[in-house]
């Protein structure tokens, strides 16, 4: 059996007296898309923040590639191959697509004693990333002028720069038009093609059931379901989220 790329063992997270996450176990396998669902306050964001290194668990262990890990902070987690695509995408509208992809990691070249931005190298690399994602985003266009799907492509292209092994996507389809949802779901499948593990946090049942391989449902800080998409149904998932179905 393959080693999970990331594993939670008996992980709990408390804020004072509040148990946000209680004895949680799960494993993420390389190259799979996992839909993480749950109502508001079910523990989704806590789980995500633990994976992304924003928080440390109160109890239990997180294993990365089979080894017990403790992320110092989110930059540490990023260095170890975990990238987050935020719901608002964290883009600078006033900059170009290529500028955004390379924000904070700009490519420079030496001119005498100076280091200047290598716009050509960044545009070429960004174009290659967009091509890999089969997106028509153009590197030198301003993000302000872009559609929701193209903006998503910019944010996802960022995660490909570092060859991230795990990409956490927070409600990627929440703020875009229905027409562009398919485009974004395609982008997620392209990531999977590259061998990336994607955790898709979503409220939208059709999205999860279109692209995910597996479904994890949280309710009141506990994992109430962890099964293959093929063995579940939107009706069951809804029941699990609301509590109409206790466990599955």
């Amino acid at each position, binding site marked *: 059996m393959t080693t999970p790329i990331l594993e939670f063992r008996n992980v709990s997270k408390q804020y004072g007296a509040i148990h946000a996450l209680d004895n949680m176990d799960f494993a993420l396998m390389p190259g799979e898309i996992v839909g993480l669902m749950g109502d508001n306050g079910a523990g989704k964001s806590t789980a995500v923040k633990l994976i992304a290194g924003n928080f440390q668990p109160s109890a239990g262990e997180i294993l990365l590639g089979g080894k017990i890990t403790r992320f110092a902070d989110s930059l540490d987690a990023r260095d170890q191959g975990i990238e987050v695509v935020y719901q608002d995408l*964290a883009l600078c509208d*006033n*900059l170009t697509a290529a500028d955004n992809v390379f924000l904070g990691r700009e490519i420079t070249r030496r001119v005498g004693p100076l280091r200047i*931005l290598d716009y050509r190298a960044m545009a070429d690399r960004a174009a290659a990333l967009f091509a890999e994602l089969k997106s028509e985003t153009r590197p030198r266009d*301003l993000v302000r002028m872009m559609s929701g799907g193209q903006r998503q492509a910019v944010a996802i292209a*960022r995660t490909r720069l570092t060859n991230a092994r795990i990409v956490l996507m927070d409600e990627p389809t929440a703020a875009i038009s229905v027409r562009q949802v398919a485009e974004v779901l395609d982008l997620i499948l392209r990531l999977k093609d590259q061998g990336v593990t994607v955790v898709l946090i979503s409220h939208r049942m059709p999205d999860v059931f279109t692209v995910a391989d597996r479904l994890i449902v949280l309710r009141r800080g506990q994992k109430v379901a962890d099964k293959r998409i093929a063995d579940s149904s939107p009706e069951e998932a809804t029941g699990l989220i609301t509590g109409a179905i206790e466990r599955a």
Partner: protein
Amino acid sequence: MGRTPRLSGLAHGAGLDTFQLIVRYAAPIFLLVLVLVFALLEPRFMHPLNLLNLLRQVSISGLIAVGMTFVILTAGIDLSVGSLLALSGLVCAMVSKGGIADRFALEIGASAGNPVYLAAAAAIGVGMAAGFLQGLVVTKLRVPPFVVTLGGLSAFRGTALLVSGGGPISGFDPDFTWWGQGRILTVPVPVILFFVAAVIAHLVLRHTRFGKHVYAIGGNARAAALNGVPVDRVTVSVYVISGFFCGLAAFLLSARLNSAEAVAGSGLELTVIAAVVIGGTSLFGGIGTIFGTVTGALLIGVLTNGLVLLNVSSFIQQIVIGVILVAAVALDQFAAGRRQSS
């Protein structure tokens, strides 16, 4: 994929129509029109001596406007520049004179002071230190830039009055005054420094990581931080840069006037901010160029100079500059509205 080579880092977007081109270059076009109108109405305007004099006047506020552009690009503001100009100028004069005791010593060459480079370094040092202090308060104490630099406007002016005792410090060595009054191949020294500074500032903003981070912070500071941009360090730096240009301008102004005084640069912050904004830089940050700022500074300089030559009252000059300022921003907003809806 069609890849059109572009000189600048920011793409110019797709599908610019004629109207948008006119809006984009509204300030330079208006500047040319003004120059033509004044040239027709008043022959003295185009005299080389007048033009060089005009440029020399512009270069002081222009240098400060270059620094201000960095600050406004991060969505900040520096209201303290006029007061800082006065304070830096006084410190510069005191260092040049070797103290405050013989501040009225007018006989040239009689001062037992310090060499000019120490005086210039003192002016620039004071400016940068003041900028650093303000930048720290903005980033570490999370006080809005408007408030911090409004405090600076008051405090630096007070400090200037305090150290000078209210009076001017006048009479410098010729190698000091050369920096304000001298010429290289007929071009005044401050004008040369202004254009050199503008070119360097342009290169820094467009071709360095630091410059890209300045734009990114103005566009979306939270996104910049999430992507590993050292937001606090860059933010402090832009106030240090603004202070640097205040110090340099203070040195050049003292040299030009052969005098420094605590009331120098009163209200200058408004002229400088007007130049930056007329040049197309957004007060919300993230959008703007040094080319625009230079254009804005020249526009205000040409307008003032031309109206003076035409004997138009300075009261009316102020009204005209106010109207142009608002019109420039209104035009930008109108263009932005059209972009959104098209």
